[in-house]
C-alpha cells in the first residue's frame, strides 16, 4: 500500500517537472510535437528506472560501506553517462525500431537533471531498494505525463494567436504554471 502511494505520488503529487522543477530543458525543448514528447518521456522513464537500480547499488554497496559519500556526485554522473551509452548501444543492437524512436533523445538525457535528481532525491529520502525503483518508474511516468500533456497543448497553440513575445518558452512556462495549479488538487491525497 505504501509503495502504491509512493508510486502515485511520484506521478501526480510530487511530479518531477511540476513540483521538483527537474527536467525543464527537455520539457520545454521536446514538447512541440506529441509523438516526440512521448518518445522522450519513454526514454527518460527507461533510463530513470535503470539509474534508480544502479545508483542505489553503488551508494549502498560501495559508497556508504567505505565512507566515500563525498564521491556521490562524481560517481552518479559517471554512472548515468555510461548507462546512457550502454542503453544506446544495447537498443541499437536489439531493436532498431525502438532505437529509431528513442535514439536521438538518449544523448540529451545525460545532462537531463531529472535523472541525476532522481538519484539524489532517492538518497536524500533514504529510500530502500524497492522504494527507489518504484520512485524511479513513477517519476519517469510523471515526467512522461507532463511532457505529453504539454505537447498536446502546444500543438493546439500553434494555431492560436499567442502574443509575439510569449511564443515558445514564455507561453509554455505559463501553461506549466497553470498545470501545476491543476495538479495541486492531488495534494494530500496520498496519506
Amino acid at each position: 500500500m505504501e509503495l502504491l502511494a509512493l508510486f502515485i505520488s511520484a506521478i501526480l503529487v510530487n511530479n518531477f517537472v511540476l513540483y521538483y522543477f527537474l527536467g525543464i530543458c527537455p520539457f520545454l525543448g521536446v514538447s512541440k510535437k506529441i509523438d516526440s514528447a512521448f518518445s522522450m518521456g519513454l526514454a527518460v522513464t527507461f533510463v530513470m528506472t535503470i539509474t534508480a537500480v544502479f545508483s542505489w547499488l553503488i551508494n549502498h554497496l560501495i559508497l556508504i560501506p567505505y565512507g566515500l559519500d563525498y564521491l556521490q556526485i562524481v560517481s552518479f554522473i559517471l554512472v548515468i553517462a555510461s548507462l546512457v551509452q550502454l542503453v544506446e548501444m544495447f537498443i541499437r543492437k536489439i531493436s532498431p525500431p525502438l532505437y529509431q524512436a528513442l535514439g536521438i533523445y538518449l544523448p540529451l538525457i545525460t545532462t537531463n537533471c531529472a535523472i541525476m535528481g532522481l538519484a539524489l532525491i532517492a538518497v536524500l529520502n533514504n529510500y530502500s531498494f524497492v522504494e527507489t525503483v518504484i520512485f524511479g518508474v513513477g517519476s519517469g511516468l510523471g515526467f512522461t505525463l507532463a511532457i505529453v500533456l504539454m505537447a498536446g497543448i502546444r500543438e493546439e497553440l500553434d494555431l492560436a494567436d499567442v502574443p509575439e513575445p510569449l511564443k515558445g518558452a514564455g507561453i509554455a512556462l505559463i501553461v506549466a504554471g497553470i498545470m501545476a495549479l491543476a495538479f495541486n488538487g492531488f495534494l494530500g491525497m496520498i496519506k
Partner: protein
Amino acid sequence: MNLSSRMVIVLTSVGLISGSFLASVGLLTKERIALNRQQETEAAIVTVVPGTTNSQIVYEEEGFTVYEGKEDNGNLAGFAIYASGTGFQGKITLMYGTDSSMTKIKFLTIIEQRETPGLGSKITDVEAFLRYWENKDMSSSLTLHKPAASSPEELAPTEVNTITGATISSEKVLEIVNLSLERLRNLKKEGKLSSEEQDAS
C-alpha cells in the same frame, strides 16, 4: 604516444587528481558536518527539555529515539523524544520533551518539514502552533481543537490547536506525536526506559 594511450592517461590522471582533491575536501568537512548534525539535535533537546546540559540516548529504533536529559547537577531534567512521520507533502521530523516523571509534554519543536509554505509550514510557528503544545497531559491520546482556538487557555489539557487553513498538517503532527506517545507508554510499562538499568549495562 598514440591516441588511445593518451586518452587513458588523461582520463586516469584527471580522475586521480579530482579523486584526491575530493578525498581531502571530504576529510576536511566530515567532522564539521557531523558536528553540525549533533549540534542540531542538542539544540533541539535543550529547547524541549530546558535546563538540560547533558543528554544521552536511552532507546532507539527507526524514526523514534528517546533521549534522557540531565541537568548540571546530575538531576534528571526530562526526556526528549525524537519522532518522524509523513506530513501533507513530505516527511516531518519533530522532537518533544517531557518532564522527568513522563506525565506532561513540556515543549514541542519541529526539526524538519516540507509542508506548504505559508500554510502547513506554520507548524514551526511558535505563536500559531507550538505554544499550544506546552504542558499537555500525555497519559492518553491528544486530540485536535477545531476550529482553531485563539489562546492556549481555551484548550483542555489533552487538546492541541489547529492551524487555520492547514488542518491536515496539524493533524499529521498530532498523529506523529500520538503514535510515539503510545510507543513511549509501552516502553515505560516494560521498564525499558529506566536510566538506572541503562547505567548498569
